[in-house]
C-alpha cells in the first residue's frame, strides 16, 4: 500500500519558490491500477516521483508498505526502489545496450545469480513479446517496442509496484492499446499494483480501477473510475473528463438537463425515440459522445427538457429507471453557469 500523508513539494527557483504539490493525501491499495490525471504542469509527474523518492517531498510523508521513505537511509531506499519499477514517456532505455542487456541491467545492480538473471530476462522478454528482438538496439525499435522493453526492465526485479509516467503519451494509438493491454495483463497475472500518470482520459478509462484528479498542485477528486467519470463533482474534474461537454452543453436557467451515461448497455433500443413515444415528452439532445462497440454503447449524452416542460421531469426519470439507464441531473450550481470559461482560466481562478 502506498500512502501520501499531507505531502507537499516546493521547488526553490531563482524567481522564488514554486509549489508543485500541496497537501496531498492519497492511498493506493494493493492490486489496483490507480490513475492520476491532470493537465501538464498540474504536478502529477512530481507526485509519482515522490513514490520512489526521485523527488523528495518538502512536507509530509510518503509511506510504502508501512515504511516512511523520508526516514530510511540511502541503502534501504535503493532496496525499496527495486520493489517499485518505473517506466517513462521517453522510455529512457540504455541506447548503447541491446534489448537483452537493457532488461538484464537491473539484475546487474544487486547480487543476482548470472544464470538465473539470463533466465529471468528470457521470461520477461517472452512476456512482452520481444524475445526475438533481444539482439536489437533501442534505436532499431519502434516506440511501442521500446516501451515494452522498458516494462520488461522495470519488472526484472519482481517489483510489487509499477509507476507509469505518461507511458503512452509518445505512442500512436495502436501502440498505446498494446502497451495498455500489456499493463492490464501484468496487473491481472502478476498482481503488480500499477500507478498511471496521464493527461489522457481514455488511458484511465481503459485500464484504471481508481482515479485521482490533480490540478494546481492539489488532488481535487479521488474515487473509483466509474464514479468519478460518470459523475465528476468538481469543476476541474469535469473540465478534464468531459471538456467538450462543459464547453458546449451550456444550460439555460430553468432548463432541466440530464446527463446520460452508457457503459456497455445494449445499443438495440432506440432510446430517445422510445422515450418520446412512451412518455410523450420531447427532449432535445444538446451533446452526445457515444461509441457503439460490438452492439454495446459507451459514452455520454446530454439531453434537456425545456423550462416550460419541467413538470415532465418525473416521467423522464421514471423511464430511465425502468430501462436501467444511468443518469445525472445537472444542477444550477455556480460552476456550471461559467460554461464558456476555458481550461486555462479555470486553472487561474482556483
Amino acid at each position, binding site marked *: 500500500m502506498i500512502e501520501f500523508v499531507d505531502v507537499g513539494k516546493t521547488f526553490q527557483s531563482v524567481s522564488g519558490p514554486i509549489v508543485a504539490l500541496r497537501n496531498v493525501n492519497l492511498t493506493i491499495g494493493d492490486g489496483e491500477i490507480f490513475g492520476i490525471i491532470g493537465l501538464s504542469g498540474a504536478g502529477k509527474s512530481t507526485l509519482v516521483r515522490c513514490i*520512489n523518492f*526521485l523527488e523528495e517531498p518538502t512536507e509530509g510523508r510518503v509511506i510504502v508498505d508501512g515504511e516512511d521513505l523520508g526516514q530510511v537511509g*540511502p541503502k534501504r531506499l*535503493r*532496496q525499496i*526502489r*527495486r520493489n*517499485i*519499477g*518505473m517506466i*517513462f514517456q*521517453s522510455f*529512457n*532505455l*540504455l*541506447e*548503447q*545496450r*541491446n534489448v537483452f542487456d537493457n532488461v538484464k*541491467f*537491473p539484475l*546487474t*545492480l*544487486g547480487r543476482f545469480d548470472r544464470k538465473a538473471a539470463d533466465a529471468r530476462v528470457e521470461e520477461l522478454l517472452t512476456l512482452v513479446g520481444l524475445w*526475438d*528482438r533481444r*539482439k*536489437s*538496439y*533501442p*534505436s*532499431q525499435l519502434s516506440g511501442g517496442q521500446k516501451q515494452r522493453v*522498458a516494462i520488461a*526492465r*522495470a519488472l*526484472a*526485479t519482481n517489483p510489487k509496484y509499477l*509507476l507509469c509516467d505518461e507511458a503512452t503519451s509518445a505512442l500512436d494509438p495502436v501502440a498505446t492499446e498494446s502497451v495498455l493491454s500489456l499493463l492490464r495483463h501484468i496487473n491481472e497475472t502478476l498482481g503488480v499494483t500499477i500507478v498511471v500518470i496521464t493527461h489522457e482520459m481514455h488511458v484511465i478509462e481503459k485500464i484504471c480501477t481508481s482515479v485521482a484528479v490533480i490540478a494546481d498542485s492539489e488532488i481535487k477528486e479521488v474515487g473509483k473510475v466509474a464514479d468519478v467519470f460518470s459523475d465528476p463533482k468538481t469543476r476541474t474534474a469535469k473540465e478534464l473528463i468531459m471538456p467538450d461537454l462543459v464547453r458546449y452543453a451550456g444550460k439555460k436557467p430553468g432548463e432541466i438537463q440530464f446527463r446520460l451515461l452508457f457503459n456497455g448497455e445494449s445499443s438495440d433500443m432506440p432510446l430517445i425515440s422510445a422515450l418520446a413515444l412512451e412518455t410523450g415528452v420531447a427532449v432535445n439532445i444538446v451533446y452526445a459522445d457515444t461509441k457503439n462497440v460490438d452492439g454495446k454503447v459507451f459514452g455520454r449524452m446530454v439531453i434537456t427538457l425545456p423550462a416550460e416542460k419541467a413538470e415532465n421531469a418525473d416521467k423522464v426519470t421514471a423511464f430511465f429507471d425502468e430501462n436501467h439507464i444511468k443518469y445525472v441531473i445537472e444542477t444550477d450550481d455556480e460552476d456550471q453557469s461559467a460554461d464558456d470559461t476555458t481550461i486555462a482560466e479555470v486553472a487561474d481562478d482556483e
Partner: protein
Amino acid sequence: MNSTLLLSTFDKIIRDWPYVVELFQKGEIAAALGITVWMVLLSVTFSYVLGLPVGIILYVTDKTGIKPNVVVNKILGVIVNIFRSIPFIILMVAFLPVAKSLVGKSYGNAAMVVMLVIGAAPYVARMVESSLKEVDKGVIEAAQSLGANTFQIIVKVLLPEARPSLMIGAIISTVTVIGYTAMAATIGGAGLGALAITQGHLRGHQAVIWTAVVLIVLIVQLIQEGGMWLVKKTDRRVRNENKRNKAQKNK
C-alpha cells in the same frame, strides 16, 4: 611577388632533398616519429588517468549532477580553469621543477611528457565533463529508479552511454597533444617538432621542416579519420538501415 617566394621555397626544398634522404638513412626521421608517437601515447594515457576522474567528479558534483557538492565542484573547477588559462609554452617552463621531482630531470622527453600531462589533463577533464553532460538525464533517472547507486550509475550508465562522445573527446585531445609535442625542443626534447626546429629551421633546411609537417599531418589524419570510423562503428544509436533489415530478417 608571392609566386617568386613560393618558387624559391620549392627550389630550396628540392635542393635540400638529399639532406632529408641522408637523415632518413641514418634513421633519424624514424626515431623522431617514434618519439613523437611515444610521447603522445604516454601523455594522452596519463592525461586520462588524471582527467577522467576529475571530469567525472566535476559532472557528479555539479548542482544539477547526481551528487551535488558545491564546495568540491567549485574548488576543482577553479583549479582546472587556472591550468587551462596558462599558455602551454609558459606552463612548460613554469612547472619544470615538478618534472624534476617526478622524473628526475627538468629537460628531455620524460620531462616533456610530464609537461604535456599537466597541460592536457585539465583539458581532458572538461572534455569528459561535457561528454557526460550529453547523457540523457532520463536514463540516469531510470537507473536511479531501479536502485542503482552513484558508483553503478557512473560505471554502468554514464560512461557506456557517453562512450561515443568520450571517444570523440579523446580524438580531439590527442590531436591537441600532438600539437603540443612539437614544443619539446624548447626543453631539450626530441621528436618531429624538435627535428623540424633543430635540423630544419636552425640549420636552414626547408625540406626537413616540410617533411616533419607532412608526417605530423599524416598522424593527425590517421587519428582523426580512424577514430571517427571507430566511433561510428561502435555507436549503437546510429540507425543503420542494413543492420535493421538484417535484424528483421533474422526474426
